[in-house]
């Protein structure tokens, strides 16, 4: 990654103006993933002066500042209490040191197909708050291929009562996932599969089925998997079949 100018704006207005003034500008979270990209940006915009690194709550939701590091999120008392599945997923991401650098905003805005947190966030009721666009559901943000340049300010997760299951399969502890699965059972059943290797996606059709068998068969149909250097589609299919069943058994027994 290369850039011509490094800017550290003191206000969101300033940051947004910089972002839209140059077509070849980029926002800097932790910068860990940006490092691997071949881009040559004109302006790199550091958001760390904007105090987007707080975690708070109101009656309905947990509000996580986009510039919080992953480690900050996973060690936060509120998040541990109210979003344990997110904490579980965060702890599987590489090692503690990179999680002290990478931000949750960068991890979401990057729309990474290898992401370990998108599947859990998709089954929780997660909204993103942008500077210009305002509140956008995570689902909408991920599906919108033409989302305009904007600054992610915070992530809002609705407080709900549920039991959950999260599984990530990695060949070594520090590798990208071969597959990850998030299941949430509250008033309804929600299932998301990520690193397929495609980006995390909800299984809306399968969620409507009743029995573990029906849901599993439907998932294998509904969720498209493919091969990459990490694993073959056949292997991913086996993993999906087994872990969906295990996860469903666990949430169905735990909810009683």
């Amino acid at each position, binding site marked *: 990654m290369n850039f011509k100018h490094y800017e550290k704006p003191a206000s969101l207005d300033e940051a947004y103006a910089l972002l839209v003034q140059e077509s070849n500008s980029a926002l800097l979270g932790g910068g860990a993933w940006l490092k*691997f990209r071949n881009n040559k940006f004109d302006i790199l915009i550091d958001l760390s002066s904007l105090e987007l690194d707080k975690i708070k709550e109101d009656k309905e939701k947990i509000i996580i500042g986009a510039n919080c590091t992953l480690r900050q999120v996973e060690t936060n008392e509120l998040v541990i209490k109210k979003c344990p599945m997110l904490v579980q997923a965060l702890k599987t991401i590489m090692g503690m040191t990179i999680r002290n650098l990478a931000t949750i905003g960068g991890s979401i805005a990057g729309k990474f197909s290898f992401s370990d947190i998108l599947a859990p966030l998709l089954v929780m009721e997660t909204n993103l708050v942008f500077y210009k666009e305002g509140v956008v559901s995570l689902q909408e943000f991920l599906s919108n291929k033409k989302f305009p340049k904007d600054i992610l300010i915070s992530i809002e997760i609705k407080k709900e009562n549920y039991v959950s299951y999260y599984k990530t399969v990695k060949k070594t502890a520090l590798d990208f996932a071969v597959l990850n699965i998030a299941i949430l059972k509250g008033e309804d059943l929600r299932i998301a599969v990520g690193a397929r290797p495609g980006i995390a996606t909800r299984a809306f059709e399968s969620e409507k089925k009743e029995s573990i068998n029906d849901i599993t068969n439907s998932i294998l149909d509904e969720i498209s998997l493919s091969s990459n250097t990490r694993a073959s589609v056949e292997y991913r299919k086996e993993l999906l079949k087994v872990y969906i069943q295990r996860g469903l058994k666990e949430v169905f027994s735990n909810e009683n």
Partner: protein
Amino acid sequence: MKINFKLNGRNEAWNINSNEYFLDTLRNHNILSVKRGCDTTSCGVCTVLLNGKPVPSCSLLSATVEGKEITTVEGIKADAEVLAKHMGSQGSDQCGYCNPSLALVVYAMRREIKNPSSEDMKEFLVGNLCRCTGYIGQEKAIRMYMEEINESNK
């Protein structure tokens, strides 16, 4: 551009290229205890403490260090010596390449977790790889280090 920051308690003002990563900045200023192993945040040997928190310096943009505090193993001498003594006694010190980063992370760990279980330790240290050992001797050495430091702090 110039960055003003604290290195091991001392005020520094260094000239850097805006594109530089802090691992190179440190080594260009002769802080050679910080190593390059993978350049992709996977190995841990480039770890430094940024405002007390372990981060991979290979992926830390030097421009962002402005106004912050950096600690390398040179800045935790007393702790490093106790750890080194126990690493030596357990035979878990072979090529030494991972040692400086391990010292920093273990120092951060004892300040963050009071009585780490084996699981806690594995979780905290998973990103600090050692190619020579099987980590068993290291865990023993770390426990002996923590015991000694906690005793002396009483």
